[in-house]
């Protein structure tokens, strides 16, 4: 009996260890207890962020989680569109703290790597063995680690006051405790709409690294949902000098190298739309609604807006995939609703977008002729 029972006990212990291990592995990285940090006011925090002009040398993984509730749009292929669909997307980022940087977007069996070596931006796509080489200053795309330096007051203290005052009109700003993000202690700066606001959003949380004052994570929370509807931030972060070899790129043998400003067609489309008309702003603060009128026909048969690959596509078809058909005394069109906002695209070319419920959009539309 002994051997048998001992066998069962040892066996059960093994199974238990395995099951517990799986559970631990599947668990999201534990938040752990909130770190204890010196008290700081919202104003001081914003000020210290603004004072920090440089991003230190770092390597990290940026995760973007999206629960917007947008349906997957196969028409918008490519790596970048992954950020739009629900789920988590990861990117590896490196920077030497002196302007050079590297971003890689891994696919299951492929990778897109962008390297800025100080003068040249290399954009390598493994799937088609192609390198895009451009020598203009890179846009700050996919660099969430670079805080937008405002063109406001040059004195950070004054600027901080200015910003807080601006925000304070219709929001409450406070430092809501601390958190550990990517293993680093951080302050949680919270912007929440005043109760009078009609917005769908509950609050926006920004985790700011207590040491380097760089933003580590941005979370958007909507009403009626405990989980962030959108979140972007570091899931791992190492602040340390990086291997300079990371910031150089030599096109591999046999790769197609495309030089010059060969911007992707997909990037052009929004530019065209942007130039089409000047949007009007209705309301303020959280309830701001953008209303614009596109020339009639833009959403109909115009073939200028094409996806990459050169296939023709019909915007109204895309709208049908994304939203539902609505109509009312104000007209008819498509309503695209997500957890954080609503968009109305009417057949007559009018568009209204805001982080508000549908009714607020209709009111805004009515105020514009």
């Amino acid at each position, binding site marked *: 009996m002994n051997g048998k029972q001992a066998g069962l006990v*040892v*066996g059960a212990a093994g199974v238990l260890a395995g099951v517990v291990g*799986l559970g631990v*592995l599947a668990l999201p990285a534990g938040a752990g207890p909130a770190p204890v940090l010196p008290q700081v006011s919202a104003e001081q925090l914003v000020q210290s962020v603004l004072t920090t002009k440089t991003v230190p040398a770092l390597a990290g993984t940026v995760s973007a989680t999206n629960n917007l509730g947008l349906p997957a749009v196969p028409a918008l292929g490519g790596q970048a569109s992954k950020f739009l669909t629900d789920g988590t997307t990861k990117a590896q980022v490196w920077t030497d703290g002196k302007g050079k940087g590297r971003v890689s977007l891994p696919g299951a069996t492929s990778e897109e790597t962008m390297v800025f070596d100080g003068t040249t931006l290399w954009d390598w796509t493994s799937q088609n063995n192609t390198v895009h080489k451009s020598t203009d200053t890179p846009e700050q795309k996919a660099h969430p680690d670079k805080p937008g330096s405002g063109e406001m007051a040059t004195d950070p203290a004054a600027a901080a006051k200015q910003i807080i005052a601006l925000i304070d009109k219709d929001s409450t700003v406070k430092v809501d405790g601390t958190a550990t993000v990517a293993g680093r202690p951080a302050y949680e700066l919270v912007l929440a709409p005043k109760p009078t606001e009609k917005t769908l959003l509950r609050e926006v949380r920004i985790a700011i690294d207590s040491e380097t004052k760089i933003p580590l994570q941005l979370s958007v929370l909507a009403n009626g949902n405990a989980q962030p509807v959108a979140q972007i931030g570091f899931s791992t972060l190492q602040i340390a000098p990086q291997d300079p070899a990371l910031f150089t790129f030599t096109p591999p043998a046999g790769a197609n190298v495309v030089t010059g400003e060969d911007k992707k067609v997909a990037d052009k489309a929004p530019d065209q739309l942007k130039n089409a008309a000047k949007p009007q702003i209705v309301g303020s603060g959280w309830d701001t609604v953008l209303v614009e009128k596109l020339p009639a026909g833009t959403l109909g048969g115009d073939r200028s807006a094409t996806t990459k690959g050169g296939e023709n596509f019909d915007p109204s078809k895309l709208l049908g995939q994304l939203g539902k058909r609505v109509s009312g005394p104000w007209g008819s069109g498509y309503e695209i609703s997500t957890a954080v906002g609503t968009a109305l695209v009417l057949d007559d070319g009018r568009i209204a977008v805001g982080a508000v419920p549908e009714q607020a959009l209709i009111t805004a539309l009515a105020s514009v002729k």
Partner: protein
Amino acid sequence: MTAAVLDRPALDRPLRAPLSRLLASELRWTLRRPRTVIAIVLLSLVPILIGIGVTIAGRRGGGGGLFATLVGNGFVLPILSLTLLLTMLLPLLGAMSAADALAGEASHGTLRGLLMAPVGRGRLLAVKAFGVATTVFIAVLGIAVVGVITGVVLVGTDGMITLSGNTLSFGDALGRIGLAVLWVTFQVWAVAAIALAVSAFTEHPLVVMAATLAGALVFGVITLIPQLDWMQPYLLTSSWTSVTDVLRDPMPWDGLVNSTLKAACYLAIGLGVAYAKVSSKDG
């Protein structure tokens, strides 16, 4: 057998055959089984087939994914082969080996012989697990070696072009392939451990194969159902894409480490169940 009564060895303490002798005997047995040999040889031919296919298809690319990367990049061939084989055939090899190890022995009545020798039950499982593990390792290594040779001969190579676009030296490339071999081996071990647990419960090797196949299908189906997304982190198969991480530079370790830990959990579960059953089962 002229040994007389007076010549008997003492009967006062537990006696065990040397472990090394048992392991050697197990290997000899495993590697003489025609089925095992044929399976290993067939699997090793896969890189050659892929290499020929890519050479014939030429520079037109096509296939996408790793196939696109393979053109002019021979060191990718072993990794690509392992990635493809890991989805089904390597787990089946592990299952087959595990099926023969316990269920097969039981069906031939040889398991009883080992228990009567006696080989202690814990040792028996250890010896069996060793045999299965070695078979899997030899198969994976064979695929990789044939892959490297085929890659160099057929596709040609000046080092390994990573998915990240840079080129690794010959030595680094071999290091990456070695890492892939170890990682893939460990993943298949996890499958084989579960199969070994099933194998301990039955006398029919085919039941083990069927159960493993069914498990693979169930995992595949779960992966396809969005409502069951929450199960993904628990599925062994869901992290099998991370082997391509060895083709990135700098290499991200988290996927490889996480999947290895996950495999270790499956290994613990499989061997735990197998141990409980083997130590209590009737001979």
